[in-house]
C-alpha cells in the first residue's frame, strides 16, 4: 500500500485526487463527500494525489523494494 492516509479533518472534498488517479485507487464517498482508498494494491506511487491535493491532506508511503518479477 502506498497511499498511507487521507486526513478527513484537513480534506475539503474537492475530489482532485480522485480525478488524477489513473489507476482508480481512490474513490469518492458521495455520502461523506470525501475520498477514500478503495484499491490500495493498485497504487503505483505516481504521487499525483499528494502533489495535487490543495490542502496537504494526503500522505504517501513509498514502498521499499516493491516486489516485481525479476529481470534476471
Amino acid at each position, binding site marked *: 500500500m502506498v497511499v498511507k492516509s487521507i486526513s478527513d479533518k484537513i480534506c475539503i472534498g474537492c475530489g482532485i485526487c480522485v480525478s488524477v488517479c489513473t489507476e*482508480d485507487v481512490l474513490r469518492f464517498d458521495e455520502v461523506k463527500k470525501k475520498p477514500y482508498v478503495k*484499491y490500495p*494494491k*493498485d497504487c503505483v506511487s505516481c504521487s*499525483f494525489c499528494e502533489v495535487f491535493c490543495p490542502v496537504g491532506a494526503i500522505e504517501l508511503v513509498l514502498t521499499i*523494494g*516493491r516486489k*516485481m518479477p525479476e529481470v534476471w
Partner: protein
Amino acid sequence: MAISTNVLSTDVLIIGGGISGLYAANKAADEGASVLIVEKSTAGWGGQMPLSGGFFAYVPPDKAEDLIRYYVAEGEYLNDQEMTEAVVKNLLPCAEEVAGWGMNSLAKGFDGKLLATAGTIGFPQRDTVMPMMLDRALKRNARVLNKVYVVDLLRDDGRVVGAVGFHYQTGDFYAITAKTTILSCGGCMYKTRGLWHTNCGEGVAMAYNAGAEMRNAEFGNMFNVANKYTMDDAGGSIGAARTLGVNARGERMMQKYPDINAPEGIRRGGGMLASGRSSRIIRAWAKEIEAGGGPIYLDLTSEDARARMPALFDLSGRSRGSLHLGYASRMRRVGVDITKQKVEWVVVPEFHEGPVRIDANGQTTVPGVYATGDLAWHGSAFVGAMDWHIGVPQGLCMVTGFWAGSHAGKTSLSLPEEKINSSQVENLKKQIYAPLDAKGTYSPYDAIREIQQVVFKLKNSFLKSRDRLEKAVSAIESIKSKFPDLAAKDSHELVRCHEAKNMVACAEILYRASLARTETRGSNVREDYPERDDKNWLSWVIIKKEGEEAKVRTEPIPIERYKYKPTSTES
C-alpha cells in the same frame, strides 16, 4: 451490477486525453468537426506527459537536417526517412502553434541549439500546456468522457466506425459511433513499475485486432535503470545513474563502453548525448553485472555532485520538469539520505511498445482509424531501430496529433453519419462483461503477474535468441488460453482483465517480430545473430492479424529513394 447503456455519436472520436489526443482534438475542432474525447483517467491529466520530465525536442529550420541525419544514423537505417523529415520539420511549427495558444513557457527553453528542451511543457497546471489545450478544445465544443475505458473498435465492412467501452467506476456501458476514430492512448508498458504504468497497450491491441499493420515492433523492448528502493527513476536521476554509475569495485564503468556514445559527426551536446543509445547503455550494465561487477551504485555523496546537479538534491517537493516527487524527496521517504550514502541501481524493464503503422496523415492501414503519439513511436518508423529517445516522443505526440486531428476533422465533414449496428454492439458488450460472470476463476492480477514474469526477463525481451523467444511465445499463448476463465469482481477489476488481454496481444507482436529479425540492430539484440546484416535486413518486419493468426512478412525499405544510405564500412 446494474449496467446502463449510453449511446453517443460524434464526427471525430479521440481515445486518450493526453498531450497528443488533446492536440488532435483542437485541430479537429478547428476544422469544424464535432469532437468527443474519451479518457480512462481525467483528460488534461492523462497519459505519460505528466510523468515525462517536461522535455520536448524541436529544432530551428537550419538545424533540421542535422537532426534528421542523426535519427537515421541512430535508427540504423530502419527509418522511413520521409516520415523522419516530416516529423522533424513539423516540431517547431507545432511548438509555435501551442505557444500561440498561450503556452508561453515553451518558447523560453528554446536556445537555438540542435535540440532545445522546454522544461515545463509537461506540467498539467492551470497555466501550462495540457489543461490549456483542454480548455481550448472545450471552448470549441469538444465533449469529454472521463473514467471511461475503451475496449474495442466498432467496424463496418472493413472500416472503423467508433468504439465501445465502460465506466471504470460505475461499470456503465458506452457505445460511440464516429466518422473517424483517433487512437491517442499510448503504447504498451506492461505496468513495469512505479510511474511508468499508465499505458497497457490498449490502442495497439485495438488497432491490431481491427487488422492494422504493425511495423518495427521488435524495437519496443526498452529496458532502463532504476534505484533499488523505490524502483523508479524520478527527477532526472536516471541520466546521472546511466552516466555516473560505479560498479562494485568503485570503477566509473561507462568509460569502459565507448559505444554508448554516438560516433563523431552525429554527436549532439549536453547531457542527452547518449540517450539515442539507450539500448547500448543497458547492454553495458547487463554485461557488467553478468561479469560479476555488480551491484552498481549512484554515488552523489561528494560536494562536487551536489554542485553540478543541484536539481537532484531539491527537497521542496516536485521534481524539476514533471509532477512526481523528486529524487532526494523520494529517497528520504525510504530512509536514504543521498548526500550521505550511495544508492544501488538496478536494471528494470520499461517498454515503450508503439508499433502501429501510420502515414503522414496519422492514418493507420485500416480506413477510419488514426494513431498518434507513443502508439506510433515505432510504427511511424521515424526513429527506425531506436527503442527510445528522451524528449522526442513528446514531439511525435504533438506532430502526429496535429496531422491526425486535421485530417480526421476535415475528412469527417464529408462523411455520412454512422448508424449503430445493434447486434455488433450487443456482441461486444457480452464479450467485454464476460469476466463479471461468476464462473471464472482466473484473477486478472495473476494474469498480469504471469505476463510480467515472461516479458520482464532481460533474456526474453532484451537479449534475445530464437530458443528463448519461442519459449516466450508459448508462455504467452498459455496465459492467453486461460483468458476465458478471467474473473472480475467489479468494474475496476474488469479494467485489469482487459489490460491483461491487451498486454498479451502486445507481447505476441513483440516476440513474433523479434523472431523474424535475424540480426542485431538497434535494440533488437539477437545473441544468436550478433551482427548487423545490411545485405538481408534493410527491411521492415510487418505484422498483421488475419483471422486469429499473426501474419508476419518483411517489406524492403525503399533505401534507393532515401537520402541517407548505410556505407559499406558500417555494415
